[in-house]
């Protein structure tokens, strides 16, 4: 997979995550029932449970902020530090999603389709972003001269 494809895939996934988290944040603050299977009851139960907030902050809002930050790092210049930021943020999102899934399965014994979708998204994103970070910028690993001012070290679209 080329760097360009990898980056675009991650951008698409994070946009999906932003959309998902935006919807969940909206229904949280609008106090409306989410549109999901079995009449939305299970999702509502999860979304209104005691685990739907952490330190008073809705987890849906935390997810939205997280996805926006990930998207921000993906739209930043193709540099090592931003690739690390993407990987670290998706790692944090994956860990938090794992915690919420644990709560759903073992504490609430209910599964919310939106939460599962987010967990799947973050799992895929973690794999891709870790790979992207670990393989680095292979074309300029050692001898590539520094980028000129205003020029990306490895412009989006350049072959890997």
């Amino acid at each position: 997979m080329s760097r360009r494809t990898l980056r675009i895939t991650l951008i698409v996934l994070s946009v999906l995550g932003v959309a998902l988290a935006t919807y969940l944040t909206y229904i949280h603050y609008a106090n409306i029932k989410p549109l999901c299977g079995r009449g939305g009851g299970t999702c509502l139960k999860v979304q209104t449970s005691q685990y739907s907030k952490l330190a008073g902050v809705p987890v849906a809002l935390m997810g939205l902020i997280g996805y926006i930050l990930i998207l921000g790092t993906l739209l930043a210049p193709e540099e090592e530090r931003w690739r690390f930021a993407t990987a670290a943020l998706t790692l944090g999102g994956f860990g938090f999603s794992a915690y919420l899934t644990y709560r759903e399965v073992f504490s609430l014994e209910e599964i919310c389709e939106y939460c599962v979708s987010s967990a799947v998204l973050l799992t895929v994103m973690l794999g891709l972003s870790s790979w992207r970070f670990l393989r680095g910028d292979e074309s300029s690993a050692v001898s590539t001269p520094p980028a000129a001012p205003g020029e990306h070290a490895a412009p989006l679209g350049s072959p890997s």
Partner: protein
Amino acid sequence: MPSARWNDDVSLFSMPLAGLEPATPGLEGRCSIQLSYRGASFILAPDGDERRPVAAVPRRYLTCLDRKSVKVPPVSNLESDEGDLTRKQRREQAREERKAAEQAAAAGDARRKRMTQLGGAVAVVVVAIVVILVATGSGGGKKTPTLVNEKGGGQSTEVKKAVAEVKQEIDGIPQSGNVLGSPAAPVTLQYFGDLECPICREFTTGALPALIQKWVKTGKLRVEYRNLETATREPEVFTTQQTDALAAGKQNKGWYFIELFYHLQGEEDSGYVTEKYLQGLASATPGLNLAKWSSDRSDQTLQAKIATDTQEANNNGFTGTPSFLIGKSGGALKKFEYSSLTDPSSFNEAIEKLLKA
């Protein structure tokens, strides 16, 4: 290796300075190849067999060279060029190999550095998740509600507060069995609930008070509580708690019991609904005759009522609570899909529509 160049008449043999080839220890005093490298140049006869010096060359060098003549194979100019080219290529190749090795080493270092960074991030995330798990524990929610004041006996502050809220909400409203509101109210809302269901609590303390205030107290709506097991894990506990509410209903105090249960609801699955708890709740229910309530709890018709409610919920496809049926009183009721459990707007619209119909 010394270079040699020939022409037709004489041969010019030149030695480069030491350095390109390793210096050789001296032989026979000062006579050595090393000495011959000191930039010595001499001209040889064209036959090549007799190495006769014909140009001015330091004597001592010539002596050495005469005695240790070096046979240089005749080579053409072209071969010489190819030799130079090969050497350049070898140097270039060696340089490229060294460069590649440096790049590989640097790439390895960079990869190790990235692995370390990612490993550090993993450690931070693991620690954060463990902290969150410990902090939230079994949920951090309300545990078993305290019904009795542990210091001086009597009702706890929590119960007193809940009783005051419930009385303010429904005091003065007609109750009959599991129904709240005037029997003549034109609209009926059937509320399928589980007393341990936290979402039912959200509705009961969220949108319902506004509906009671606007529609029930004005005699336009009657709310009928029906039973559907969802949140309560043990069927026996569900049957007992719901029967107890219906038993209070036999004294027309059912909605006091229901409202109090939701107001004081404990943490789901914490096992707080015990016999002692139910007795304490009944004691807190305003105006309830405890002796009659105790005997009505074993009324089999109440358990049959719960079974009927469950069957009707299944017939309507209800799998969660709260679920609702709404319609004209005495007529066919239809499923009602709410948009919020805390905002009564969607309920208000449905009731207004039925009142206008």
